[in-house]
């Protein structure tokens, strides 16, 4: 006869033994036991990857809850979000957290991306981790773009119109891309249905797969130590991932949760006015903040640059910029050899400065508001 468990610890041990008898988890236990995180003056940046993952988890949970009430059609989308905000118990909280968390997630993702860039963590052997991370960044932006339209409000409608027009400037395939994105010649209910499909099915499927690869690679290769610290030759101390780093992660996640709660309670995400395709475009159409630098750049470009459309030059420029970031581990040969790489450092500074200045101009320049 099995002795009766005396405390909750005994209960956990008994459950653990029960599982162990059926599934061999010793490999995973070993990985967790031996996983360590280097401790140095840049350790803080390691937390942003986990924070992004936590916010993504919030997106998944709140997104599933919103799905229960959201109706993806031009006739009902706005009203269903309005219903969520006013009639559904805690619907306002779920929707506001979903919107705020999306923005915080892009922010932490950008911090994560550029901290990896400046710490040259993309260098050999982590090229594939960087490439998968860049794909995740692209997916996150697409999540943002497709989700922005779903409430079917005036601002989102016209911003999507502008955004899909810009996609039309991609050389050769632009017009086809615009038609495919819109599901026709113009932004209509058909666009809404496909943005919904992209947002809740296609993007989550791709994200799950690529995120799996990304996390697997991080696990396999461990955390990268910045080359400057490696070059110093001193031994780098470390801390166990479980529980030391994970508990610290938890502190950050709980803080993020409190911030999200505060934002949702004091600055609930606005719904705006229902989109009217026949109304003239309102003043102050602008995209989400993370597209603002692109939007502002396109505003400054002249209609024609030589024989080519100004917008097309801008779109090609951003395409090349994205391609450069994607291929940076293969272009930066010096950091692959563990050497200093000032050129890529300054290129990174240039990119960040450009994004910050142009975004600020988007909000502050006359006519930008």
């Amino acid at each position, binding site marked *: 006869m099995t002795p009766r468990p005396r405390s909750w610890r005994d209960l956990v041990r008994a459950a653990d033994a029960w599982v162990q008898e059926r599934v061999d988890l010793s490999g995973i236990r070993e990985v967790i036991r031996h996983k360590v995180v280097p401790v140095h003056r840049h350790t803080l940046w390691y937390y942003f990857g986990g924070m992004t993952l936590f916010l993504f988890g919030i997106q998944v949970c709140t997104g599933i809850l919103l799905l229960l009430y959201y109706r993806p059609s031009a006739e009902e989308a706005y009203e269903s979000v*309005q219903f969520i*905000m*006013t009639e559904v118990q805690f619907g*306002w*909280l779920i929707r506001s957290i979903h919107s705020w968390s999306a923005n915080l997630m892009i922010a932490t993702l950008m911090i994560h991306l550029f901290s990896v860039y400046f710490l040259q963590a993309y260098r050999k052997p982590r090229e594939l981790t960087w490439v998968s991370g860049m794909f995740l960044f692209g997916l996150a932006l697409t999540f943002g773009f497709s989700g922005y339209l779903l409430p079917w409000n005036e601002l989102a409608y016209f911003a999507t119109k502008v955004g899909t027009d810009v996609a039309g400037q991609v050389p050769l395939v632009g017009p086809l891309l615009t038609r495919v994105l819109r599901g026709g010649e113009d932004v209509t209910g058909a666009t809404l249905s496909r943005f919904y499909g992209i947002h809740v099915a296609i993007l989550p499927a791709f994200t799950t797969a690529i995120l799996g690869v990304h996390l697997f690679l991080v696990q396999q290769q461990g955390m990268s130590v910045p080359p400057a610290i490696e070059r110093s030759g001193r031994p780098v101390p470390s801390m166990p991932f479980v*529980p*030391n780093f994970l*508990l*610290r992660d*938890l*502190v950050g996640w*709980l*803080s993020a*949760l*409190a911030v999200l*709660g*505060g934002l*949702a*309670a*004091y*600055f*609930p995400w*606005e*719904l705006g*006015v229902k989109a009217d395709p026949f109304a003239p475009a309102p003043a102050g159409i602008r995209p989400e903040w993370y597209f603002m630098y692109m939007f502002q750049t396109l505003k400054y470009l002249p209609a024609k640059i030589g024989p080519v459309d100004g917008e097309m030059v801008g779109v090609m420029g951003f395409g090349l910029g994205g391609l450069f970031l994607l291929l940076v581990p293969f272009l930066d040969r010096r950091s692959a050899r563990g050497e200093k790489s000032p050129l890529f450092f300054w290129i990174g500074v240039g990119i960040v400065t450009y994004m910050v200045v142009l975004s600020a101009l988007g909000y502050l320049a006359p006519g930008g508001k």
Partner: protein
Amino acid sequence: MRRVRLAVSALAALLLLAGGAAAQKLPEGNSCIECHRALGDPRVTPPAEKFAQDVHLAKGILCQNCHGGDPANSDMQGAMNPRKGFIGKPKHQAIPQLCGKCHSDAAYMKRFNPTIRVDQVQEYYTSVHGKLLRQGDQKVATCISCHSVHNIRAIKDQQAWTYPVKVVDTCGRCHGDAAYMKGYKVSTDVVEKYKRSVHYEALTKKGDLSAPTCNVCHGNHGATPPGVNSVANVCGTCHSLTEEMFNKSPHKKAFAAMDLPACVTCHSNHEVRKTSDDLVGTGEKALCVNCHDPKSAGYQKAGAIRASLDELGGALQRAAAILTQAEKAGMEVSQAKFELRGAADNLLKARAEVHLFDPAPVRKLAEEGVQIANKMYAKGEQALADLRFRHRGLWISVGIILVAILGLVLKIREIDRRQA
């Protein structure tokens, strides 16, 4: 410096080109135009120059069609030969008939516009202007007084004297000139009064070209002041619902008995100002007290009507204020704001129903409106209560999270100490 001069010259040339864009090319080989332009005489040259902007030129109607003569003849005597029908400058009294030669000819006018009116001259002689002209008055308006001469523009042309926003100044050239109008029994302050009216504001500031100007109430070719009995009909062409209510009201008979014009008695004629609820009731600004003394039933009714309007107005204002407050705090109240429009509609209807001068229908609309407004006020209150609940909930959650964070920090310290 040279560059600046060049730029200024280019700009001036561009402006000149732009300014002249509306003008047409004057015909070549037309001796009337060529001689009159060449003479450079301020008495005879301007008509030829101005003609480039005339709508008749665009239709191929030239000098000889009104003045007669032979423009193909380059000799002045030959061109202006009375045997060739030359009449020179037509007499003031002959102008309506001269224009009517074409404009009253349906068959001829259909060549240019199949829907154009051809009864203007006939109508003109029913007007005060036409009647006086027949009596030999040389000062009254004829066609050219309002449509201009030699640079006559189509009525849809924004520069035409007859374009709606310009009509008041066209009429005002005579009717606003006290010296010119001396001897006629009409006041010359009408132009200034009209320009202070809500109609002029709608026409010029809101760009509502359907807003009435002089000719809409007085007629254009048949311009005549509406009489006491027909004023309501004139206003009723636009304010039909109000007219209908007034006709059902006890005021209809009472005004007629006292020989008071319907709408004008309360709203004035040329200087129709924006109305407000203050005009109704028994207050200082109320118009009702001008006739109704405090002991009369009319006085009591006026007070009751005003009380209903005030009650609905107040409820509407209260509900709108609380919903705006909730909206500014980030609460979603757009549905409530939409439903509140029902109460605003009722207020609008109640204000129109004032013209029945019966408190009952106004009261009914006000009660319905107040009910809607109170319901929306409750929704606003609920939204603010929800907001307070959210804030309380947030601080309780933050408190729990802080306690959890504190526990985690203590645990981390304990682990770090143990491992050290």
